[in-house]
């Protein structure tokens, strides 16, 4: 039933009329099987359509309006919105645009700009590290060894431990930060910091110092990375298990080594999931509770200022950045994955 038979169409709009006719009784198409199936299918996804229109599209539009205006809550009557105008000169002509809130968020707010840049940098590094890490762990968990079930149980614990309030709640404590500072300084002074001494050893040889800095940054943040890769491991593992063993057998018979069959079979088969995981990781990082940009938006919104307009503008900027990031990584991944196919 899934294969649509495309008929010859007389006009460019005949597709549209056909699909409208599927829903309107009293014509030939209405009683056909595809039309019936289409109506039932639409009924199945109706909750989603309603929800998307009412609780996503409408608030999105409202939020866009808010980000352009000053919102004042009026008791009883809801709220009023007035555009926050700002004059710009483009090619010599002065144009007044309602971008006051955006200007405030980027140019006037003391913290937002800086936090945004920091968090994006952290996101880029963490995403790459999370993807690599979860892929390696998934490949290992997919092998047969003693204690595999036990390892699986443990590796899915981060799904619980890194959700909701749990990750941010302790790091907001001053004592916690103090303790980790002390830990770092002790390690520095006594020289038992393994990663640092290794870093010194390698960077003395003077090869690509910046790259090593990033790598060691990742190694130091390994706890955060493992905690953030719960779902990604599960997704990769499900992909790995759907690969048929006969493929490996055939490769073995043809004389492939394990290394070769990893790159020629495992990697191409799992690579579609790379995209899903990357997008998920980026979004997960965005919505984390301990994300400092999110904290800033919350303080602007619910804090003393109660500034809904600026808060909306901030979250739109943040969303725009995320979208750009997702678009770039999608582009890169689809390009590289295609070369394997």
């Amino acid at each position, binding site marked *: 039933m899934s294969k649509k038979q495309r008929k010859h169409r007389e006009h460019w709009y005949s597709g549209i009329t056909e699909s409208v006719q599927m829903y309107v009784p009293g014509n030939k198409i209405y009683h056909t099987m595809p039309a019936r199936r289409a109506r039932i299918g639409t009924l199945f996804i109706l909750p989603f359509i309603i929800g998307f229109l009412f609780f*996503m599209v409408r608030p999105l539009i409202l939020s866009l309006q808010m980000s352009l205006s000053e919102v004042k809550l009026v008791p009883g009557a809801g709220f009023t919105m007035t555009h926050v105008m700002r004059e710009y000169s483009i090619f010599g002509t002065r144009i007044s645009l309602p971008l006051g809130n955006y200007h405030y968020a980027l140019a006037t707010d003391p913290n937002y700009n800086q936090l945004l840049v920091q968090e994006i940098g952290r996101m880029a590094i963490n995403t790459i590290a999370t993807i690599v890490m979860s892929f390696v762990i998934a490949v290992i968990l997919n092998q047969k060894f003693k204690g595999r079930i036990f390892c699986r149980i443990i590796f899915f614990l981060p799904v619980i431990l890194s959700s909701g309030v749990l990750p941010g709640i302790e790091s907001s404590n001053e004592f916690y930060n103090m303790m980790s500072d002390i830990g770092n300084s002790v390690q520095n002074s006594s020289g038992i910091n393994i990663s640092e001494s290794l870093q010194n050893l390698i960077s003395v040889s003077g090869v690509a110092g910046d790259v090593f800095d990033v790598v060691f940054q990742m190694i130091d943040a390994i706890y955060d990375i493992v905690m953030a890769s719960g779902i990604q491991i599960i997704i990769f593992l499900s992909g790995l298990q759907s690969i048929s063993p006969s493929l490996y057998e055939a490769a073995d018979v043809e004389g492939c080594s394990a290394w070769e069959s990893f790159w020629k079979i495992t990697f191409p088969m799992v690579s579609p999931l790379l995209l899903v995981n990357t997008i998920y990781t980026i979004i997960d990082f965005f919505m984390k509770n301990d994300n400092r940009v999110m904290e800033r938006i919350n303080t602007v919104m619910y804090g003393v200022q109660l500034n809904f307009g600026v808060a909306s503008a901030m979250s739109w900027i*943040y969303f725009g950045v995320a979208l750009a990031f997702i678009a770039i990584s999608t582009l890169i991944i689809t390009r590289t994955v295609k070369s394997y196919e």
Partner: protein
Amino acid sequence: MSKDNTVFIGENKNFWVRNRRSEGYLLKRRVKQITISVVRALLMFGLCFMIIQPMVTRFAMSLMKEQDLYDSTIILLPRHVTLENFKIVYDLTDMPTSMLNTLWISIVVSICQVVAATLVSYGFARFEFPLKKFWFACVVMLIIIPPQTIQTALYVTFSNFDVFGIFQATTGSALNLRSSLLPYIMMSLTCMGLKNGLFIYMLRQYFKSVPESLEEAAYVDGCGTMHTFVKIMLPDAVPTIASCFLFSFVWQWTDLFYTRNFLSGYNMLSVRMSTMASRMGRYFSSDATQAVVVPNGRQLQLISIAVLMCCIPLIILYCFTQRTFVESLAMTGSKE
């Protein structure tokens, strides 16, 4: 992976004889296998230890008296064992009420989410209808758009809730649904709840992997669409649905964002936990009007205990259901 070649050599020969016959290949292979398994075991042990260690530390800390916290000779084993910390956290988080509230709200919300997601994902997996691609793109958008973007707008929408001005016309003013459960239930039933897009995606993958001939056979035998869905598709999908339910439950249990925005009228565990530190001063003072300064170390200890108490039910639940988790997710393979 590769089969043992004892068949060709004979079982009674010892290892070195067999090795000589295979011209050193056997030894090479054995060494390689052992090296791989040792490296793997080390890696797995290290990572597992890293995940478990904070929980162990928390547990050890929960049994310590305050003086033990500042004693530098104590790392894990407490010198003065006490259980009163649990009592304090129990009071501070308003435990029986907040946990029961969190429990029933999480169950209700997860059921709503999963029911809606199952229906929608079946619609996407099995039917052809106009604009299908567009709506599925919307599902992907749903996963991508952070709820923070529409947070303010939803706040305003639900504080004067109205459907095409009906309430305005009948009762004179729009409804304020800010402190009731209704907005959140509505959102869950229409797939707009916490990470709902992901559930649709997962369940759709599953339904797509079921062979279509199963349904066609049912159709030939005179089964209607609804009948096919309930009697044939649903029973097989139970493990996947269950794991979606568990994800939903766990995330809802610890969620702060939606809880703070939609369930401000309820006494919830996550909100209690996040505001715990600010209520400690009042709790420890003998006089109800003044607050004492609680040392940061003590605060951290109590917060850690709260985290532990919040996690324990989930971990117990997870231990009982991990088989469902692992196996159903293994089946939700990618078919694209």
